[in-house]
């Protein structure tokens, strides 16, 4: 009898779960926002030329159904599977991270080569610029798809008047998606391989040794590095890549500082809170702060101030024998580490001001390693122009690093973040010198064609 009752209960629960799933799916379908059915057609008409159409029904992990339509250039049809795969991955991830995909249809329009047409924000429509030749391990095509789809949340679902914020959020989102795609396809935790183009940009080559990292190359840190203090209010197109990279690096810095779960909660809250409304940069970071239960104004004010840059450095490291007997018996070394803030921006970790000689905030980590294998981890609020740390111990220091975990991706010069007392090891740099020498030898031989 007991067994029968239990079976009945299980059956009731199972039926309830099934009914709930069906109902939730139906609600998801019914809550999909209406789309302008002529938008994609109008866009294709504006772009001109012939398109090859493909229609792929998608069912996302959440159960949401989406009708994927591809409008491809005739010479790009071979990329259809890659585009569909990237779209599926992006929709799946964003659906889980931000909020359910708001429409029941997605059209990806492949803009003709050399078209001067500027990308537009249209609900349910994504524009990409595929290339005829596209190496398999270079995911530049997938990046465009993932970036465009992210704009369906950041810019379309949530109206974002600040172009840099919308671009930066899309850039950040695509970097995470691409890492998953690369991992799934090649079983490596990378963003993409580096793609170089020859013959007027028409012939690509993916450099197999140059595996790109999501948190640097995936955010186009090179563009940010060349213009670290870019003004985010500047509307010119020339500075757009630097602006995008700056915002994306700022969001990734928060991901590393707060942790992905807290950031993801904040991103999801922002979409839900401002769906169908306008969201300013201040509103966005306020929402992130609410979700993480932290005040982030200390970061936002500094990270987005025009002309303001982060640059922390270890400017001095000395370790000398101490004869005062401060360490008791045995050898004693006095190690002095000098840290400097070279940029105007401060990465403190809190808006609370310091009280007297006491620092406020511990955002910056300082790592000092010693010859006997010991390690010291300290923190700095990064406010003062300079800070000196003194250690007394039985062994001399070998290395001092500021921000060893590379949390602050907005630090535009990482080369000065560490200092060592060990003789320089050529192991890490020698391959580059050797490669460069071979490159120069080849350059000389190629030049001999002319003489």
């Amino acid at each position, binding site marked *: 009898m007991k067994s029968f009752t239990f079976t009945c209960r299980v059956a009731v629960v199972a039926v309830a779960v099934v009914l709930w799933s069906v109902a939730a799916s139906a609600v998801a379908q019914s809550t999909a926002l209406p789309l302008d059915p002529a938008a994609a057609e109008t866009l294709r008409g504006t772009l001109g030329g012939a398109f090859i159409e493909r229609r792929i029904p998608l069912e996302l992990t959440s159960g949401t159904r989406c009708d994927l339509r591809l409008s491809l250039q005739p010479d790009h049809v071979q990329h259809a599977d890659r585009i569909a795969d990237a779209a599926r991955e992006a929709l799946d991830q964003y659906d889980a991270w931000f909020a359910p995909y708001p429409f029941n249809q997605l059209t990806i329009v492949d803009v003709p080569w050399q078209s001067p047409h500027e990308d537009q924000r249209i609900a349910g429509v994504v524009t990409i610029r595929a290339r005829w030749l596209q190496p398999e391990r270079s995911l530049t095509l997938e990046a465009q798809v993932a970036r465009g789809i992210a704009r369906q949340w950041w810019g379309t679902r949530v109206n974002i008047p600040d172009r840099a914020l919308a671009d930066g959020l899309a850039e950040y989102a695509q970097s995470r998606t691409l890492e998953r795609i690369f991992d799934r396809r090649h079983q490596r935790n990378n963003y993409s391989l580096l793609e170089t183009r020859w013959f007027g940009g028409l012939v690509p080559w993916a450099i*197999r040794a140059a595996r790109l990292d999501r948190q640097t190359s995936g955010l186009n840190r090179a563009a940010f590095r060349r213009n670290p203090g870019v003004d985010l209010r500047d509307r010119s197109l020339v500075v757009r890549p630097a602006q995008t990279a700056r915002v994306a690096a700022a969001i990734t810095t928060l991901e590393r500082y707060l942790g992905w779960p807290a950031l993801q909660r904040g991103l999801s809250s922002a979409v839900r809170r401002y769906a169908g409304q306008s969201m300013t940069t201040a509103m966005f970071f306020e929402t992130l702060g609410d979700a993480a239960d932290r005040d982030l104004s200390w970061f936002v004010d500094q990270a987005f101030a025009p002309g303001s840059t982060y640059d922390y450095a270890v400017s001095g490291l000395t370790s000398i024998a101490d004869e005062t007997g401060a360490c008791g018996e045995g050898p004693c070394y006095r190690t002095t580490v000098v840290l400097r803030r070279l940029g105007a921006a401060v990465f403190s970790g809190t808006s609370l001001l310091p009280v007297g000689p006491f620092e406020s905030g511990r955002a910056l980590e300082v790592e000092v390693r010693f010859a006997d294998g010991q390690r010291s981890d300290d923190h700095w609020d990064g406010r003062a122009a300079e800070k000196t740390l003194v250690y007394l111990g039985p062994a001399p220091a070998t290395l001092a690093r500021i921000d060893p975990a590379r949390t602050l991706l907005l630090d535009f010069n990482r080369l000065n973040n560490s200092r060592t007392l060990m003789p320089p090891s050529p192991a*890490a740099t020698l391959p580059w*010198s050797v*490669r460069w020498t071979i490159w120069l*030898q080849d350059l*000389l031989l190629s030049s001999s064609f*002319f*003489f």
Partner: protein
Amino acid sequence: MGILRTWFSGVWRVVRAPAVVTGLYVLILVVAAPLGAWLQLSLPSPGVVDIVDANDPPAPDVDWLDEVSLHAPGLARFLTPAVIGVAAPIGHLDAILDRRRPPMPLLIPIAVFFLCWTAVWGGVVERLAQGRRIGVSAAMAASRRSMGRLLILGLSGGAAYLILYLAVHAVMFGPLYEWLTDGAIERTAFIWRVALAVVFGVLLLALSQLLDFAKLAIILGRASVRQAVSDSGKLLRERLLTVMALLLFSGLGLVVLLGGYAASEFIPGGSVPSLARVIVGGQALILGRLLLRLVLAGGQVDLYLRSRSAS
């Protein structure tokens, strides 16, 4: 049959002159290696590398490289991912075709190499022409005898190349290419670019062959610069097919060499090779390219000598 005989004669002349191959290889190394050492000294450490296993090296850090090229002093500014693997030689060939010159400071080693190459080329050609050991003094005498005229020819040739690039290349790959590809799909643009590259490549090769045979006329025929160019033009007109075949063989050799070098990246462990593998593979490429250059020169010498004896 005569074409193959000329090419094999070139191969044979090079095979019998290992000292020439070694000497030119060492010359390339002597110009490049000190700069490589200088670069090594100016490279900052990419942070802490706790464990570096020579058999399993870390993948190159492209972001660190970008940082170095922006912040580091000296030659480190010219270090880019383009130096990795087959991207290096193909990038150089592409630069020739696409009119991209190396960074200004690197023109200095190229100029030094030009002077050294011109200084020894007389001896190299004399050795290839004799087909037997001639001794260092005879080679140096041949170099001394022709160096001045080779220098004038080289500089004049440089001016001719400059005109070719500034006048013809700029028009072909500028307004003409844009006009041809206006509204075209990328595949069509590629076909147009190949067509234009073939035309421009033919012009480049024609000029290079004119200069190459003029050098032979200076070294082996002891002609004046003007006479040498005239003789060279005449030889090209008379033996065009053989010259084209020599170039074709060299081109095929280069394709095979670069193909092999590129394929080595796909061998297990080849995508991020060990340092030893980078050195061996890279030097094999340089040696291969040098051999191809010398085999072409040997074939040209054979053709020049036969043409002279026939006339």
